[in-house]
């Protein structure tokens, strides 16, 4: 358990606020080993926002729960490194990680109705979150809870604080969830599909609110979603996840204007836009997400990739590496530039994008 044995094979603490190195989260089950996250690395600084995008089952939620140390050590195998503000969390004792949860790192969950306890008032649940990390009286904590509810835009917070979650509307519940997550000024905030359960206008309000609060608190923010549109305006960087691993990483501009991975192209084309009928999908991603037990050999995306034949049998035999395609061409505050996991040579990918894919996206 001592740090000394650990430091032998790990390099010293990195300067980034959060850094994941080769994170793997596997679940042994009766059907086989589920490799939900398989070698994920990224860095994130305070004040910056990272969007993690991917289809259902790509391992987004498992990653975020892993960062918070919420996996049951009895049924999850976690390896790799998670550095938070100079502390390594994978090897840290569970109690040390628990002390950071809710205080240094907090999470906003997808469905605020089921994520809040139905039998306690909204106020009580915020008070509890605050008092566990701050030794204050109930009265002080209650005042803080009312303040927080006011800050996230709940009208008459001093009255609504005593309401139960079921007495709030969906949007208000998500605001209350955010108030709860922010109650101890966390430096890292993870929002797992924060707007999926909400209707479109409320979605926009919640996203605005999160952006404002992030500026105010100067926190590092991770937004997890399966919808690129959600992260377009908020993120500095975007990580595209597929089958438990990163297949493309870059600044938001890279991902939207210079994407190089066929899967990202598919995501972009299936993104609903105001100027397009939402049902119309130009380059739908055919097929189903990969099994995480029997991961396809070679490129995980190859069974669904329209360009798989361009790289010969390499696609089916050799796992492509995540390689930098355009160093330093990142946007504002990106780390590691623009990285893509694909066997096609960068020039070929760019020409495909420019000549085939992009025109199709733009014309309709």
């Amino acid at each position: 358990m001592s740090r000394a044995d650990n430091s032998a094979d790990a390099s010293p603490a990195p300067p980034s606020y959060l850094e994941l190195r080769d994170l793997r989260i596997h679940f042994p089950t009766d059907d086989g080993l589920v490799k939900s996250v398989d070698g994920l690395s990224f860095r994130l600084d305070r004040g910056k926002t990272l969007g993690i995008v991917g289809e259902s089952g790509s391992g987004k939620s498992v990653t975020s729960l892993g960062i918070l140390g919420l996996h049951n050590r009895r049924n999850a195998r976690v390896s790799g490194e998670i550095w938070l503000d100079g502390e390594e969390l994978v090897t840290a004792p569970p109690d040390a990680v628990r002390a950071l949860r809710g205080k240094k790192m907090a999470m906003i969950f997808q469905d605020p109705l089921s994520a809040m306890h139905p039998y306690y008032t909204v106020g009580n649940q915020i008070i509890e979150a605050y008092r566990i990390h701050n030794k204050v009286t109930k009265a002080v904590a209650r005042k803080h809870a009312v303040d927080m509810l006011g800050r996230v835009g709940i009208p008459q917070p001093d009255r609504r604080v005593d309401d139960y979650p079921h007495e709030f509307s969906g949007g208000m519940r998500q605001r209350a969830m955010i108030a709860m997550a922010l109650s101890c000024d966390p430096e890292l905030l993870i929002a797992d599909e924060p707007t999926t359960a909400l209707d479109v206008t409320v979605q926009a309000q919640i996203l605005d609110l999160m952006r404002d609060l992030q500026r105010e608190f100067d926190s590092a923010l991770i937004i997890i979603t399966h919808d690129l549109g959600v992260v377009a305006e908020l993120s500095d960087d975007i990580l595209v996840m597929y089958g438990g691993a990163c297949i493309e990483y870059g600044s938001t501009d890279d991902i939207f204007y210079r994407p190089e991975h066929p899967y990202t192209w598919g995501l972009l084309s299936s993104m609903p836009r105001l100027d397009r009928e939402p049902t119309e999908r130009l380059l739908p991603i055919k097929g189903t997400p990969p099994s995480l037990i029997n991961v396809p050999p070679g490129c995980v995306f190859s069974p669904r990739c329209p360009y798989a034949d361009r790289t010969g049998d390499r696609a089916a035999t050799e796992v492509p590496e995540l390689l930098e395609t355009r160093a330093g061409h990142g946007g504002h505050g990106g780390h590691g530039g623009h990285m893509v996991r694909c066997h096609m040579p960068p020039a070929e990918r760019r020409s495909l994008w420019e000549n085939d894919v992009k025109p199709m996206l733009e014309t309709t």
Partner: protein
Amino acid sequence: MVTYIIRRLIAAILMLLIVSMVTFAIFFLVPRLAGATPEGMASRYVGRTANAETAKLAAERLGFNDPVVVQYGNYIKGIVFGAEYDYGPGVEKCPAPCLGYSFITRQPVLNDLIDRFPVTLSLAVGAAVIWVLAGVSIGVLSALRRGSLFDRAAMTVALAGVSLPIFFTGLISLVVLSYGNPFSIFAQGGHYTPITENPIEWAYNLILPWITLAFLFAAGYARLTRAGMLDTMNEDYIRTARAKGLPERTVVAKHGLRGALTPIVTIFGLDFGLLIGGAVLTESTYSLQGLGKYAVDAITNNDLPKVMGVTLLTAVFVIAANLIVDLLYAVVDPRVRLS
């Protein structure tokens, strides 16, 4: 809320009236239909010693010649206003609420019930404390260590507890723990000391019946709690509680158990309400003079007024327990609206 309670109270009273009609019909109408004469009924009422003439007189004076509906009306009138029984040799007074008058013991039934109630209540309260504490904690531990040796052992014992009849477990513990053998640490059955006289002796005399009765219930509660905890510990709000950084103990007790509490509270209210009407088997096994034993003895002695009285009292407890459980339901689960 207030109108809801008033409505429920009216419904409860109607329910009681129906129960009283049915019981009255069973004990007073059915025998007549089966061929019993008014004199025969009266002699059951005043005791078999009465000779034919007294029986006839008693039947007349006690109203057994009246239509059954009138008899029932008089019974209800007695509950509300009290009654006087002029059965020939003398007049017996039975003040309101008169649940009947036993001519065998020459006592208003209510007096007996008041005497017996503390025994049954002591038995029920003590057993309830044990079975709730034991059942719920075993259920929680089983759920948290699902599939472990503890879980499997506890659930096997619980299954036995639910299936074995109480006179069996009662007799076993009576034999093992109380008769002249090395384990005879507890008193044998049949003793009761009021708690007001000597609390230690009270508990000492009741501990065996408590354990016997609690074993039966604890088994059910352990299974119920385990099932509930397995459900709630998978809820999203448990993940939220952990994400706040709460210690696991708080997560389990304050969030998990709280979420599993509704069915436990409901069942407890109903069980307890039924139990304070008399724990027939336990009281009989341990010869405790509670309401359950009273009912059994009354049936054995064919003492109709007593049977009527104790049945009605039990009905009152059960109906009250139902009402309280419904009200508690809204307290336990704020999403429930009473209307």
